[in-house]
């Protein structure tokens, strides 16, 4: 009785209306949950909104969160288009951070700032790319399921980070805390806007989104990726080299996740430590989906989710609501957004009557 039919193209009003309604529903359900903890949901939501967009400063914090989400998600979009499920951005992000830290710690005195930063960017991308290359090669040559390999490599990356932080890279003057020394100014990504934490990574993210969009829509590489993703047998029939494409796309995807890790520690944290927010690697999966695997849309989605997270972390501080509630609001909104995304891609019929 309920029937879904894939849409050929998505009308603009639906593209805007569906997410809006989904957010409202998510807010509603989240609000009911908030009421259970004896807090007025309206004040909570107001606080989130103000916490995300209410002042120049919090607004800039929203962008700070959006940067890694954008960098990672556009890379994921590339491989997701190919039906390759890279859920290892978490680990690739960590490896990017580790690789670039090597230069931050060892070359800060000998290199000028632009050269050092360039080296760190390259190192970050190489780190992420190498980490992505392992599951890519396993899939390309031995057909090993990437969901398992990318996921397991996340844990390995985390333990490598822990090993370094408790071992060779721990700063002797950090009183036993697992931290490196604070990076020299030479090794810090410059700020784009003073008095905020917005850094050069924003430009990286926007450029990456545009490049990925062009790759998918305009290049032969993107065409091959879409053919593989839509019908692998036809791709083989057409003589497309599937192994080569998996490896190349994963190098780019992992490289961007690595760059996100680099940008985060060089632009925000200014040192390597155990907590460097690799969870962005998972959140970016949601960004990729919500943007309908469109790299330009990912810019907007990253910004919105950045706001949600920045705002939510604000209320935790200002309103002293339990952290679980914050998570609940976040997830109920995400839940409805993802559910609504089905309706942007499919028409819904009930007893043959078109509903939406």
């Amino acid at each position, binding site marked *: 009785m309920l029937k879904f039919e894939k849409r050929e193209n998505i009308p603009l009003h639906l593209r805007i209306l569906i997410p809006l309604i989904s957010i409202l529903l998510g807010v509603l359900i989240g609000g009911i949950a908030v009421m259970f903890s004896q807090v007025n949901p309206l004040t909570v939501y107001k606080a989130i909104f103000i916490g995300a967009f209410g002042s120049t400063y919090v607004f800039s914090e929203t962008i700070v969160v959006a940067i890694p989400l954008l960098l990672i998600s556009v890379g994921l979009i590339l491989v997701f288009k190919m039906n390759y499920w890279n859920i290892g951005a978490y680990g690739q992000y960590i490896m990017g951070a580790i690789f670039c830290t090597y230069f931050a710690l060892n070359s800060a005195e000998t290199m000028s700032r632009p050269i050092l930063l360039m080296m760190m960017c390259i190192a970050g991308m190489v780190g992420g790319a190498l980490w992505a290359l392992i599951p890519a090669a396993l899939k390309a040559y031995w057909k090993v399921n990437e969901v398992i390999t990318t996921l397991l490599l996340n844990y390995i990356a985390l333990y490598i980070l822990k090993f370094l932080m408790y071992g060779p890279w721990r700063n002797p003057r950090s009183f036993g805390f697992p931290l490196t020394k604070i990076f020299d100014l030479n090794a810090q990504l410059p700020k784009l806007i003073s008095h905020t934490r917005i850094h050069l990574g924003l430009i990286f993210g926007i450029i990456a989104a545009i490049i990925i969009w062009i790759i998918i829509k*305009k*290049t032969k590489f993107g065409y091959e990726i879409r053919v593989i993703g*839509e019908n692998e*047998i036809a791709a083989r*029939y057409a003589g497309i*080299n599937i192994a080569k494409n998996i490896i190349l796309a994963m190098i780019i995807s992992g490289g961007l996740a690595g760059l996100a890790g680099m940008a985060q520690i060089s632009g925000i944290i200014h040192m390597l430590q155990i907590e460097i927010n690799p969870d962005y690697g998972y959140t970016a999966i949601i960004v990729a989906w919500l943007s309908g695997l469109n790299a330009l849309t990912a810019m907007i989605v990253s910004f919105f989710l950045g706001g949600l997270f920045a705002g939510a972390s604000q209320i935790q501080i200002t309103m002293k609501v339990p952290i679980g509630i914050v998570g609940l609001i976040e997830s109920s909104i995400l839940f409805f957004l993802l559910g609504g995304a089905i309706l942007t891609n499919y028409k819904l019929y009930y007893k*043959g*009557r078109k509903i939406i």
Partner: protein
Amino acid sequence: MGAIVLQVKNISKHFPGVLANDHINFDLRKGEIHTLLGENGAGKTTLMNILDGIYYPDEGEIYLNGKKVDIRSPFEATKNGIGMIHQHFMLVDTLTVLENVVLGLESQGFYLNKKKIAERIKEISQNYNLNINPYAKIWQLSVGEQQRVEIIKTLFRGAKILIMDEPTAVLTPQEADTLFKILRRMIKEDKSIIFISHKLDEVMKISDRITVLRKGKLVGTVDKKEIKQKELAKMMVGREVLFRLDRNPIRRKGEVLKIEDLETHNDKGIIILRGINFSLPGGEIFGLAGVSGNGQTELAEVIVGLRRAIAGKVYIKGEEVTNLCPKAITKEGTNYIPPDRLKVGLVPNLSTVENAILRRYDREPISRGIFLNYEEAAKYTRELIKQFNIMVPRENAPVKFLSGGNLQKLILAREIREEPALLIAVHPSRGLDVGATEFVRKKLLEERDQGVAILLISEDLEELLMISDRIGVIYEGKIVGMVDIDDANINEIGLMMAGVHKNPLLKGEENVKV
């Protein structure tokens, strides 16, 4: 003849860029087989999908036994006693016949009374001579048997009106005969059948009445007894259709394809080719006849590199290409028209343009450095569309919205335009209307005259006899007979296909001159 059970009045259905049904009137009587005929893209499938509730018409009415009905889903169609068997079967491979039959039934409740259902299936199966075991798994069944499972499904649900969209396109002539017997049995039980086919001889054999559509419009409904096959073709295409093709004398040139002791597995890991040997020179059409499942598709796949050979060798123009990748083999000038258009030959969700360039995107002028030149791609696509007369309402819409025959034409156009040295064509005219079939056959003959070596794999003996220069018969993974077209005898070939009769010529394989 019986009373009118179904009447369609002024039905119109419009898709972006095309009016698929334009005020169609049509009626069906109790106990009749009513054939729907029309060129590729004429709107037959669309009209049937409307009856089955898959599409809802923009305009018009449907009456069942004189009462107006509103069919908005296949479920409501079932409730109204209408069952449709689509050209692509809707069965779950890993489940049994019984499980497939109950799948989607509403009134079963939580607990399945398997025994009772199995009894009922057996009863239906016996009543109509369907010969189906309710506990067999779908993947174990032949195409013809799977189709009969679809028939059981609709009968189980109480269908009184049965719609069959090109059921014989995938059947061997023998299987088609079995199907016709079943259909005749069904009309005796007062069922009514709407039948779609492009094969005029079987249309003449089985129908009571025939309705012809052209470009979405109704041309007319005629009584089978009052019309001849030729007139029917003219009604459909709007011009005379040749049922005979003139052939130039053969001019063979150097060996293009050579197969030596080839062996391979099928998808289930069972050996399906057991030592195939033949050689094919340029300028010849070699027709390979055989009942499906005897290894012919696997043979094609091994040659083009989509399946690994476990023994033996393949040479193209003297060079060994055994187990090379498809790209390398294509580079040798091999092109392939696969049997399954949507699974192998096309990417359903990409546009017509993106599908048309599948062979060329990597070459100038469509390739421009690392970029694709979409203008050139569209230009090239339009050339194909024009040259092969493909009906494409919108070239940037997903290709899966083309009609069955037009999908086939697109693949043919794309592969032939590559000007191959070796063309492997599996059922090239499957699902094509008479006009398009004639066009394709002519095109294949033209290619042959240009010196292309063509391996034509088909179950359609008539087609094989019409255009091949030599016919081989494949049976249980071996070539059991080979005859020159001038010595070909349709009965003898038929017997060899059934494995009854062996060609004495084949005792010493080398004797067969190419």
